[in-house]
């Protein structure tokens, strides 16, 4: 079974076994190693990506279920300025400024959850704590992450 997806705006096909977790396809076949492996059990959120505009744990999605899906990973967030410089997504920029990352393992998943929350705040009626509930961080104690998210929200509601 050949599986087609769009990953960060690019068409992509894979012949990986259909049961392979999407996470493995992203990391091993697509060499998009920004998305992290933490637990493989849906508990930690390190593997969080956006699939068809929904937040998912990519370790729990057998790749066959991602057929024809649109996938967004942390690698797709930054934009290129006219002069070729990289412009980080406001959530990434805010993490940088607020010290929202320490070891960095949780960061890509945390950033994807944050980006998704700014797009769809209505999906987490209890706010940021609910939006980031599925993402564990063993380093920061979360307060820098929350500050970063508040700063990103102030910076405007990015698309």
């Amino acid at each position, binding site marked *: *079974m050949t599986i087609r997806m769009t990953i960060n705006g690019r068409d992509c096909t894979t012949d*990986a*076994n*259909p*049961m*392979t*977790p999407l*996470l*493995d396809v992203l*990391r*091993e076949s697509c060499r998009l190693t920004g998305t992290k*492996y933490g637990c*493989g*059990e*849906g*508990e930690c*959120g390190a593997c*969080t990506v956006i699939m068809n505009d*929904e*937040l*998912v*744990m990519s*370790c*729990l*999605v*057998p790749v*066959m*279920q991602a*057929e024809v899906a649109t996938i967004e990973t942390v690698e797709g967030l930054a934009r290129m300025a006219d002069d070729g410089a990289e412009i980080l997504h406001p959530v990434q920029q805010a993490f940088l400024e607020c010290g929202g990352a320490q070891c960095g393992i949780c960061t890509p998943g945390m950033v994807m*959850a944050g980006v998704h929350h700014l797009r769809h705040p209505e*999906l*987490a009626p209890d706010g940021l704590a*609910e*939006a980031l*509930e*599925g*993402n564990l961080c063993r380093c920061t104690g979360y307060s820098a992450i929350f500050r970063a998210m508040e700063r990103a929200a102030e910076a405007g509601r990015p698309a």
Partner: protein
Amino acid sequence: MIVSNAVRYPTYVPATVAEALEQKAGVANLLPIAGGTEVMVMFNEGLLAPCPVQSLHRLAPEWGGIREAEGSLVIGALATYTDVRHHPVVRERYPLLVEAARVTGALQIQNRGTLVGNIVNGSPAADTVPALFAYGAQVRLLSTRGERTVAVTDFYTGYRKTVLRADELISEIVIPPPADGARHYYRKVGTRAAQAISKVVVAGVRGRDSVRLAWGSVGPTTLRTPKTEAAIASGADADEAVATLATEMSPLDDIRSTRDYRLAVSQNLLREFLKRTSPGG
């Protein structure tokens, strides 16, 4: 890299319900996958015995939605917790389902996990099952032989044992409308709010002269407490109701909690249920 053994799981990806039922009837030990939030955990941990698997995702157009039919609510087999939480009719009339969905896992789990997957798994800790018991939900089972409907309260025959036959798939959950003016109560007690497996969960609906109470994590299956329900319906006070509960509930000791703790928590939850749902309260 998680996977080393994906080849031991031949995959079937039916495009129609008819095809799915043919496969289920024809392929021995075929394991359906809906949201995958249980199956993939087992798979990744190497705990899923090799077997053919059947992903249901292409059936989303037929089985994905939530709709109303003849006054009842119909939840398709592929409807997720997120669908339930944000559906206007569910929000208006079935608050226990919204609450149960809200406390199940985090958003990433709610976006993939299905209520039907929660039912089939058969864990006594499944968080939506007490709500479905309290609302008197029915489960629709399909096979190439035809269709049957089973009350969710009759679906379990023992610890992780169900009446689901090898050639059957669940197509939908059908829930009758709650009585007018009914009061609804749901509480999950776990070690923390998100992601944690329940120690005790209760769902209750109290109408003018009827009470339904369903409990999770206190026995081998989700269970109702009919004596306590009858006592409350006939006007017992809180002390009497709590004493009756102790006569018909015998929770388990396990790694998450003890029998005595679970019974004490259940009795406290019953008092809160009575207070919150008292007619006039």
